[in-house]
C-alpha cells in the first residue's frame, strides 16, 4: 500500500524562554537562557537551586480556579500550548469529522507534583488513608490527552507515550504512522512535563544528573563545552498538529513542513547511562533516515538530544559521526537545551518545533554557553556555538533519548507540493 503524506499545520509552545511559539522562536534565535533560581519551592537544602521554569503562567486565569485545581501542572501546560496550536491551525472542529482526529501525547513522568502533595499529606496523618478523589486522575500520565479530547470533543485514537525523555518523539512517530496508514485525518500531538518541585529536583540530584552551577544558572546548560556538569531541569509543553496532506489541502491549511520519517531503538545497556559507543543513538538516526528514504547527504540540521551531561554528549557525537560519516562536517548541529533546559517528556515536542521553524525560516538556533572546547570533539564539527546561523534547511532531524535506553528520532522536510 502507498503511504499517505503527513504535514505540520499548527504549533503551540509553552517554554521557559517564551509562552508562545513566536516568543519561543525569538528566544531561540537570540540565544536566550531560561535558567534562573527556582521560585516554586524553597531550595535551601537542595544541591541544585536553579532550573528553567515556565514564567508568568496563570493557571487560574487560563482555566478558572475550579478546573485549575483539578489539573496537575503538566496537564495545564498541555491544554495551554494546545489552545495556541488549535488556533494557529485554524481548526473549527464543528466542521471536521472528530471521530478521525486523535490525540497522542508524551509525558515522561506525569503528575509528580500531585503525587508528592498527596503522599506528603498521607504521611502527616495517622495512617488513615485520606486521599483526595482527584489524586489518581490528576496524576496519571495518560490524563493530558484525555483532557485535550474532552475540551475539543475529539474521538479518534487517544493515549500517552511514556519513554522518559524520548516520550514526545514517540508521540510524534505514533501519530505520523497512524496518519500514514490512513487510520486518522489529524492528530494533536506533542508532550508536556512539570517536574520542577521537591521530588523532581531532589530525585534527579540524587542521581548526580543535574548541573550544580548555582553561582551562574544562566550558563549552566552548556552542551559540548569542556566544563559541562549536568543537565538543567526544564518544564513546559509543545503541541504539533500533524495532518494528512490531502485533508490539510482540502481545508486550505497553512503548511509549516512535512514530517517524513521516524526511527526508534533501544540501548539495551543500562537503566540510565547511555551506551558508551552511542550504539542505540546511531541506530535510531539511521532508522529514521531509512524510514524517510534519505541518506546523510540530504540532512542539513540535527537538533541533538545534547543534555550537557559529561557522559551523554560524547556518546551522541560518536553516534552522529558513525551515522553521518563525512557528512557530519557539512551539517549544523545544535542543542537548544542550552537555552530551554531539559523538558524531559516535552523535550521532543519543543525541539521538533525548533527543527520545523529552522526549516521554515532557514535559521539554525544556536548551542549557547560555549566557553571552552572539549578536546574530545572534532573541531571541524559545526555545533552552531553561541550564535544562530543562516542556512537553507531542507531537512532537519531531531533526537530524543530517555532513561531506560529508549531512543527516538524524527525527520522533517521543507514542504513541496
Amino acid at each position: 500500500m502507498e503511504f499517505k503524506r503527513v504535514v505540520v499545520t499548527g504549533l503551540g509552545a509553552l517554554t521557559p524562554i517564551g509562552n508562545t511559539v513566536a516568543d519561543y522562536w525569538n528566544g531561540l534565535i537570540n540565544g536566550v537562557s531560561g535558567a534562573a533560581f527556582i521560585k516554586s519551592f524553597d531550595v535551601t537544602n537542595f544541591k541544585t537551586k536553579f532550573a528553567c521554569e515556565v514564567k508568568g503562567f496563570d493557571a487560574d486565569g487560563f482555566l478558572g480556579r475550579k478546573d485549575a485545581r483539578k489539573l496537575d501542572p503538566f496537564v495545564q501546560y498541555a491544554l495551554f500550548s494546545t489552545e495556541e496550536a488549535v488556533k494557529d491551525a485554524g481548526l473549527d472542529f464543528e466542521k471536521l469529522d472528530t471521530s478521525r482526529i486523535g490525540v497522542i501525547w508524551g509525558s515522561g513522568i506525569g503528575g509528580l507534583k500531585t503525587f508528592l502533595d498527596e503522599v506528603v499529606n498521607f504521611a502527616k496523618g495517622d495512617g488513615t488513608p485520606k486521599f483526595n478523589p482527584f489524586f489518581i486522575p490528576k496524576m496519571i500520565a495518560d490524563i493530558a490527552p484525555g483532557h485535550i479530547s474532552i475540551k475539543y470533543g475529539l474521538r479518534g485514537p487517544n493515549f500517552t507515550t511514556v519513554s522518559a525523555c524520548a516520550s514526545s518523539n514517540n508521540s510524534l512517530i505514533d501519530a505520523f504512522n497512524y496518519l500514514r496508514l490512513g487510520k486518522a485525518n489529524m492528530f494533536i500531538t506533542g508532550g508536556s512535563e512539570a517536574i520542577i518541585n521537591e521530588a523532581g529536583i531532589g530525585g534527579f540530584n540524587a542521581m548526580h544528573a543535574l548541573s550544580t552551577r548555582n553561582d551562574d544558572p544562566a550558563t549552566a546548560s552548556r552542551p559540548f563545552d569542556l566544563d559541562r556538569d549536568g543537565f538543567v531541569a526544564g518544564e513546559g509543553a509543545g503541541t504539533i498538529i500533524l495532518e494528512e496532506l490531502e485533508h490539510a489541502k482540502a481545508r486550505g491549511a497553512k503548511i509549516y513542513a512535512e514530517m517524513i520519517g521516524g526511527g526508534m531503538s533501544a540501548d539495551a545497556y543500562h537503566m540510565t547511562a547511555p551506551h558508551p559507543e552511542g550504539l542505540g543513538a546511531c541506530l535510531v538516526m539511521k532508522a529514521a533516515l531509512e524510514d524517510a528514504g534519505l541518506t546523510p547527504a540530504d540532512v542539513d540540521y540535527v537538533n541533538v538530544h545534547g543534555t550537557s551531561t559529561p557522559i551523554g554528549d560524547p556518546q551522541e557525537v560518536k553516534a552522529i559521526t558513525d551515522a553521518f560519516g563525512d557528512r557530519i562536517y557539512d551539517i549544523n548541529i545544535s542543542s537548544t537545551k542550552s537555552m530551554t533546559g531539559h523538558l524531559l517528556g516535552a523535550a521532543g515536542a519543543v525541539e521538533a518545533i525548533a527543527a520545523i521553524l529552522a526549516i521554515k525560516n532557514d535559521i539554525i538556533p544556536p548551542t549557547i554557553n560555549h566557553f571552552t572546547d572539549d578536546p574530545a570533539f572534532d573541531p571541524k564539527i559545526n555545533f552552531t556555538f553561541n550564535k544562530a546561523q543562516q542556512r537553507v534547511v531542507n531537512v532537519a532531524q531531531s533526537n530524543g533519548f530517555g532513561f531506560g535506553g529508549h531512543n527516538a528520532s524524527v525527520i522533517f522536510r521543507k514542504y513541496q507540493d
Partner: protein
Amino acid sequence: MSDIASRVKAIIVEKLGVDESEVTPEASFTNDLGADSLDTVELIMEFEKEFNVAIPDDQAETIGTVGQAVAYLEKNVKA
C-alpha cells in the same frame, strides 16, 4: 445562619467554584451546583476535615444537598 452552615457554604463555594448566592439549603450538589461524583466525595472529605468527624459511606450517600449536609453536621458535630 448557624456557624456550621456558614462554614459548609464556604467549603462549597471554594471547592465547586460557585457563587455564594447559589448555595441555598435546597441546592443539590450534582443537579444544581455542577458537582460530579468525584467532587461529591471531595466535599464529604472536606466536611470531615473541617468539623473533625468521620462520615461513614452509608451516611455520606444520604447527603445530596446543602441542607442535608448542614443537618447531618449539626446533629453529629460535638459543640
